[in-house]
């Protein structure tokens, strides 16, 4: 098995006729992902290298049986596209678009949370790769092979970096999940921890966090209570400049949370080993799983 994307994935790409959209769609298809359709309003009836394009997600779902969406449209239109995919009955929506307004993300998150069975990954994320099965997004798949390590990360390129370090040590991956770096991600570490815990293929979970928010602290609590599989952590930003706080209100809300040190400490307090460099993450993985 794998999580979120795999052999069952039937992908519809929103923004398929854009240059980046078509480039990555074709990349994903070349990898073996079952790309069944695309959506570009006004270009219904056309095709992109044989992939049929529809005017609406509703038509795409009805005609092509899509169950997964990849959203590639520019920021002003991305929230609308995500909501459309959800309304049309798409189950897994992977939003790559960077720079979506925060209030749009807030409305989208709140709406989708109320729609049972619909999951949003991202926005501002690199997507999800289940090596050997499907790649949805912009993760350079050639670096990764099938295996037993599940990776989840708030950062895009850092995910590749860590995946690459693991690969160089001989590890393959069940799935690599990019959660995105925006203030309101659709899916959090806790959600993916639950998936990896229930995934037969995954034997070790790597969690790559960064400064800001409290997603890592919340995940630490969750791991202690619900996760039986070993978890290795990484936190970026130990030497990063202190982030801009949002006035006094922001400081009151976040309290002392949010620093890399606090996050690493929270994880270690729950027995999660935290690597200090991507390389060290791979070394810990070897110790746990054997080389």
């Amino acid at each position, binding site marked *: 098995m794998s999580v979120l994307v795999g052999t069952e994935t039937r992908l519809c790409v929103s923004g398929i006729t854009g240059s980046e959209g078509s480039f990555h769609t074709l990349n994903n298809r070349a990898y073996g992902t079952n790309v069944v359709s695309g959506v570009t309003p006004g270009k219904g009836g056309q095709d992109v290298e044989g992939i049929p394009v529809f005017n609406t997600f509703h038509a795409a779902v009805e005609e092509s049986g899509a169950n997964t969406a990849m959203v590639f449209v520019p920021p002003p239109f991305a929230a609308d596209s995500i909501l459309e995919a959800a309304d049309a009955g798409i189950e897994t929506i992977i939003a790559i678009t960077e720079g979506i307004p925060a209030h749009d993300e807030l409305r989208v998150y709140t709406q989708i949370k109320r729609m049972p069975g619909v999951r949003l990954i991202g926005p501002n994320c690199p997507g999800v790769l289940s090596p050997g099965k499907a790649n949805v997004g912009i993760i350079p798949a050639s670096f990764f092979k099938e295996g037993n390590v599940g990776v989840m990360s708030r950062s895009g390129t850092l995910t590749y970096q860590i995946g*690459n370090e693991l690969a160089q040590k001989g590890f393959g991956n069940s799935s690599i999940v990019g959660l995105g770096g925006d203030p309101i991600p659709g899916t959090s570490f806790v959600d993916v921890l639950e998936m990896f815990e229930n995934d037969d293929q995954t034997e070790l979970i790597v969690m790559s966090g960064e400064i800001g928010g409290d997603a890592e602290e919340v995940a630490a609590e969750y791991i202690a209570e619900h996760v039986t599989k070993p978890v290795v952590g990484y936190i970026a930003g130990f030497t990063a400049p202190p982030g801009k706080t949002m006035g006094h209100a922001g400081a009151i809300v976040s309290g002392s949370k949010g620093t890399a040190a606090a996050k690493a400490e929270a994880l270690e307090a729950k027995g999660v080993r935290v690597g200090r460099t991507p390389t060290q993450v791979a070394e810990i993985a070897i110790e746990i799983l054997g080389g």
Partner: protein
Amino acid sequence: MDLLEYQGKQLFARHEIPVPSGIPARTVDEAVAAAEKIGYPCVVKAQVKIGGRGKAGGVKVAANAEEAGEYADAILGMDIKGFTVHELWIEEASEIEAEYYAAIVFDRSARSALVMLSTQGGMDIEQVSEETPEAIATLHVDPLLGFQPFEARRLAFEAGIDADLIRPIGEFLTKLYDTFIAEEAMLVEVNPVIITPERKVRALDSKVTLDENALFRHKENAELRDPSDEDPQEQMARDRGLTYVKLDGDIGILGNGAGLVMSTLDVVAQYGGSPANFLDAGGGSKADAITSAVEVICSNEKVKAVLFNIFGGITRCDEVANGLIEAFAQAKPTVPFVVRLDGTNDVVGRKILADANLPGVYTASTMNEAAEKVVALAKGETP
């Protein structure tokens, strides 16, 4: 994007939040003219995007034109915690009976907006939060339902607001929420909200942070950006669409993706180096973004060596390589570079770079190796 006090108040006024009247001024003459128009006493306030200007002498009450001129002259150009005062706000003086605190902020943990209200305004609210958190009433808002009157009332009752002010404070919070939503703010903060002797509610200060990603929908707000108070390198980076933060060290850093750049800083530090900046060239970095990035990094005279750490996803390594070649042609950097290219089109990218044979450019196959080399180069050693 942070706004100056008076810009925030202009936003408030758009949504009928009561604010004292005032006039902005950039020179002593303008300040005196503004004071004459407003009448005395009036307040001469430094406009800087940092707290604590009162203690720093940036806020003075003028009783007449002479004092207004004197204070304006003293405050203009003043340095407050590293921020130079370029602008003043001349405001009618307010009579104050009580000082409250009100704010609405994006709460990432709860993934919703948090409204805060306290009667302990005017002082250090963070201290209040630590010592007597119950003195700050808080409430999360459902963004689809919106902020309801009962929620405003509940906050007011829980904060212990006087009975006669429950309704006006509730209305104040509702208008503050309207502002937060309509202007797509990440933060609206008023400290203090004042109660006048006539029991009127007014915003005496403002702190507003707008969502930069939403400015395309708010053309008039986009124009509020004040480049005069930005670091020249940061300004150059912003103009070119790069995320750049200046740091104290001597190793220039460029990466693609905030996480990878942060990780690069950490690894450089672990090898004993000291980063000169954080620079995220972003997803899909094109050749011209790379050229700009090199210019921005090298315009910092402290930089002794530069680390390029690229792991291509949406970014293509061949584009980065070409960008670097172009940057070398245009900017002719004098410091050594360590370049690590991995990911999409990395083989092609590395070949382009090897063929170009740029002066002072070293390559590395891993991030650790790259960090080690650049630290050595910054120390003047040969890696």
